[in-house]
């Protein structure tokens, strides 16, 4: 039962947030219900599908496998944040151009996971891209277009930083 609540303070998309949350509340429920950040989606609530992928202290995590209270003092970034900062603007543009999304439900998590790979630098092989994105389920595209899009941005970023 919900008799335990805790006060937490954290930074979400660059904004300081202080809230009282139930101890049992997952990070993704907190983001969606308490902060209205509905860009992080819920697909399975058991850590498999990757739709709730967000960044906590720079690392991608499953928002359904982490409790909100574990994020006290943390820096959390969601799709809304990395969109507005322009960090993934090139990736988003190529997803749109390549039709690397259909229903779009997996896309925020997919972009966060792809950005995590791209941040490691270099131009990963198609196999490495496929391997890295295997924790993010997409039921619409068959993945081919997503791999194309990530590969294109890897090349573009590598070319641009030479």
């Amino acid at each position, binding site marked *: 039962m919900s008799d335990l609540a805790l006060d937490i303070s954290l930074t979400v998309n660059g904004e300081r947030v202080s809230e009282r949350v139930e101890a049992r509340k997952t990070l993704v429920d907190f983001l969606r219900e308490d902060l209205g950040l509905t860009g992080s989606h819920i697909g399975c609530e058991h850590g498999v599908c990757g739709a709730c992928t967000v960044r906590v202290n720079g690392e991608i995590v499953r928002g359904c496998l982490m409790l909100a209270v574990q994020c006290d003092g943390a820096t959390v970034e969601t799709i809304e944040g990395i969109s507005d900062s322009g960090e993934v603007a090139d990736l988003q543009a190529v*997803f749109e151009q390549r039709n690397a999304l259909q229903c779009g439900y997996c896309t925020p998590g997919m972009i966060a996971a792809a950005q995590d790979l791209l941040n490691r630098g270099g131009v990963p092989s198609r196999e490495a891209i496929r391997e890295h994105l295997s924790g993010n389920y997409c039921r619409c595209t068959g993945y081919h277009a997503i791999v194309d899009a990530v590969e294109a941005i890897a090349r573009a970023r590598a070319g641009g930083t030479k």
Partner: protein
Amino acid sequence: MKITDDSPPVLSALDRPNSYIGRSVPRPNLQRLTQGRGQYVSDVTLPRMAHVAYLRSPHAHARIIKIAATAAKKAPGVIAVVTGAELAKVMTPWVGVLTHLKGLKSAPQYPIAVECACWQGEAVAAVVARTRAEAEDACELVEISYEELPAVVDPETALDAKTHVIHASLGDNLCFERKLEVGAVDKAFAESDAVVETTFVCGRHTGVTTEPRAVVADWNEGEQRLTVYQGTQAPHMMQNLFAKHLSLAEHQVRVLTKDVGGSFGIKVHTYADEMATVALSKLLKRPVKFVADRIESFVTDIHARDHRIKARIGVKNDGTITAFEIDDLTGIGPYSVYPRTSGIEANQVVNLTGGPYTCPNYRAQARVVFQNKNLMCQYRAVGHPIAVAVTEGLVELAAAKIGMDPLEIRRRNLIADDAYPCASAAGLKFEKLSHHESLAHLDAMMNYAGLRAEQKKLRAQGIYRGIGFASFIEVTNPSAAFYGVGGARISSQDGATVKLDAQGALIVATGVTEQGQGAEAVVAQCVATSFGVSIDKVRVITGDTDNTPYGGGTWASRAAGIGGEAAWQAGKDLRGNVLAVAGAMLQAKPEHLDIRNGIVVDKANGTERLPLDELARVAYFRPDTLPPGFQAELIATRHYVPRAWPFAFTNGIQASYLEVDTDTGFVKLLKHWCVEDCGTIINPQLVDEQIRGGVVQGIGAALFEQCLYDERGQMLNGNMADYLVPMAAEMPDIECGHVVSPTADSELGAKGAGEAGTAGAPACVMNAINDALRPLGAQPVTDMPFTPGKILKALGKV
């Protein structure tokens, strides 16, 4: 990276200046989704909104003896605990039958079970609370006592005299039966040089939409109106059903469908828990939200494809196929799903088997039986993957038996490209297909001869690769023949309304819906082209029964072919209206004018005469300057329904290249090809992506996906970790090719493309595995999904 490679395969005959037909235009509104700013039903919140959690039967079949809810009703946040009997006073039950499927029967189904729960997962009580968490907490306080009843699980024994009858009122467990015999089947088999007989099994699987089913129902007691936010493929169908079963008029119900996180046929049905949520809103006079969690999805989203097919093919030594025979048995759960019924899939198997071939002798039997498992109904490519697996599996086994190349046996039996119009043995009417041209295209595209040489070389090194094919036909653009003639209020026509705004841009409202396929893009392309503006000047509105023309929605690959044609015609109509205004303003004959790139021009030489924003300014704000008696009409609506053919059949052929690890039984997919003919291609990129996505769903069926049940009717793997779906690392690159045979039933000539990938992929993966294993003397595998264990068993290693 092939972003620029999706160029139109042929020049369109729809030769308007600046045509978007045949161009890979990016979909409008995608930025909303890539930025996480979409609005899915799961995201919707309303003032005073309550949340419902359902208590679900832990038994496959049980009588509900008592529901004790006193403690739950006192739990924090709880608004109501409602039983099936209480909700039956608000909403009437339904029966999933269609009159054109003769003899199909089912029993009344209630939003919440009233006397008996008939499958594990059926809702037996609802707890409504301020939050979903509080509702789930209170569920734990509800005590329900059951009397377990015999569970009918195995379709093979469902019709036995000693088997418990699930619905006593129906007399037996038979939902539907169909028999068909064409030609001289026994004679044909007797005269065959070889006969291959085997049993195919398709594993029961489901759609696994990434966003689970979701609904927010808002009954406004003051307005006496119901607004339902629902992730559905068919808003007008749902409007009708909500109204009918709440005893309301349709105009009292508005269904709103914004972004939908995947559908694939899963979200085109009536779900008891969604109906219950709507009824609860009416009962409690406030908004109520239900979002299925993943565990609930697995035991309540419709399942599909659970078929066992005994099948036989006769063949001559010259490759001529002499006869097909099938006996299909399928278990569809305890109810036929409303309103499309659960008889359609087996009916499609009977219709489609043998469909690409000239063989005139065909015998089929299909039996659809009730059982105590989750309901089955239409999922992407309804019936096609089963019929194609049976047909193409038999064709390749027959080819192997007479020592003929699998493409060669197809060349000798596929309906000739110049034979149309014609009909299949089962009576399907084909306007124009291109089996042979598609096969030739595939042969070249995949370098078949080169792959065979590589395969041979690698076999010598102990590496076992296989090549498999599947020719197929695909039902698209359905007319009223699909559902309307059977009495279901499911529209086969669709409409589009186009209006000119006061700055010369267009707003289009369409009855087809968007779940990611790109229906909005296609509608925008059609209107931009036929009216004459750039596509960024077209905004498309879908999914609102108050504000879009009446239509069927998006299913059976109808959005482009039917919704696109209506939009094309509406754009043309509005162009006529606007040119009448331009003619009045310019003192020119409208027929001498055209609209190009947003500007009224002289048709003959393209001389610019009048920008649309100026025309709109005059028409809306200075109509006093127009000639006396002239009234500008700046909105146009057109509807379209296919009339010449019951369905626009498409065709194609797929190939799979894979490697089997003969020590572990694992299959590595190396490459996949699909050549498809969907008529006029409006947006090549969207067609290719429909095919790729469809192929991967078909591969899921072939290798991974299965809803596993035990003998008590308990689903064993109903979660995302245990139910396997294709992941990026396991999937191959998929190459697409096209042949274009437009339908003459519409001006656009577009047919559908959404089912093709899913229709053919399981068959060609199966055939490729068997091709890989053939030199090892393995028994052919025909029992999907082809898990490593089954492959090792075929190899005799376990």
